[in-house]
């Protein structure tokens, strides 16, 4: 099993990450990926960019813990997580999650679980920048409800 969780301070290509993750894979029938993209708008209006503040070391460990928890919980083979920090422009990938498994149900569930954890427990502090200024944001009620679907 290979479990990796990586923090990146600049743009990365989700398609290239998928290509590497798939390369040479013969025993797994299922690969599920999630790509979270920075949107050009939010509830409050247009968004010109995001800034993800992080605490070096601490943030990386929060990603690694979430990936390791998913690996323990589901019948999967490999997990690869890439997460941005710093400035992110609309259309760029914020997060890439890939899960490989012999069968698809475990792959879907693990990816879903990873995202619910990452959206609430990854150690980031996110600022949305728009024409009317900036605001620091917290997980939405939806995010918290999604997280609550998984008992600890």
């Amino acid at each position, binding site marked *: 099993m290979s479990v990796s969780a990586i923090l990146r301070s600049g743009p990365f290509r989700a398609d290239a990450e998928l290509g590497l993750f798939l390369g040479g894979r013969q025993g797994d029938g299922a690969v599920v990926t999630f790509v*979270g993209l920075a949107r050009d708008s939010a509830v409050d209006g247009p968004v010109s960019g995001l800034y993800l503040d992080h605490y070096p070391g601490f943030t990386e460990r929060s990603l690694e813990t979430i990936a390791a928890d998913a690996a323990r919980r589901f019948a999967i083979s490999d997990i690869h997580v890439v997460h941005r920090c710093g400035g992110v422009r609309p259309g760029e990938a914020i997060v890439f999650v890939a899960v490989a498994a012999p069968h698809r149900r475990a792959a879907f569930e693990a990816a879903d679980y990873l995202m619910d954890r990452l959206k609430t427990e*990854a150690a980031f502090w996110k*600022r949305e920048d728009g024409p009317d200024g900036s605001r*620091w944001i917290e*997980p939405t009620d939806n995010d918290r409800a999604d997280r609550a679907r998984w008992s600890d």
Partner: protein
Amino acid sequence: MDIRIFLLGDLGARFGREHRLEFSEGLTAGEVRHRLIERIEGSAAALSASGVRIAVDQTVVPDTTCLAPGQEVALLPVFSGG
């Protein structure tokens, strides 16, 4: 050796990201919080908010934790998630 203190997220943006305090015998994590509040005008409500946790050497701890010289303290607002 001084205690280094990091304020993350909006706390860092409002009150400065990095601070230093002189270590003194019996200093606790909660005492660091109070000394910062005294030092930074208008920071009381934000720094004492219940959602703001304290990490010592990158581990979240209760306010009663005793510090040692040279340790790193961080004040962590509620994570936004990724």
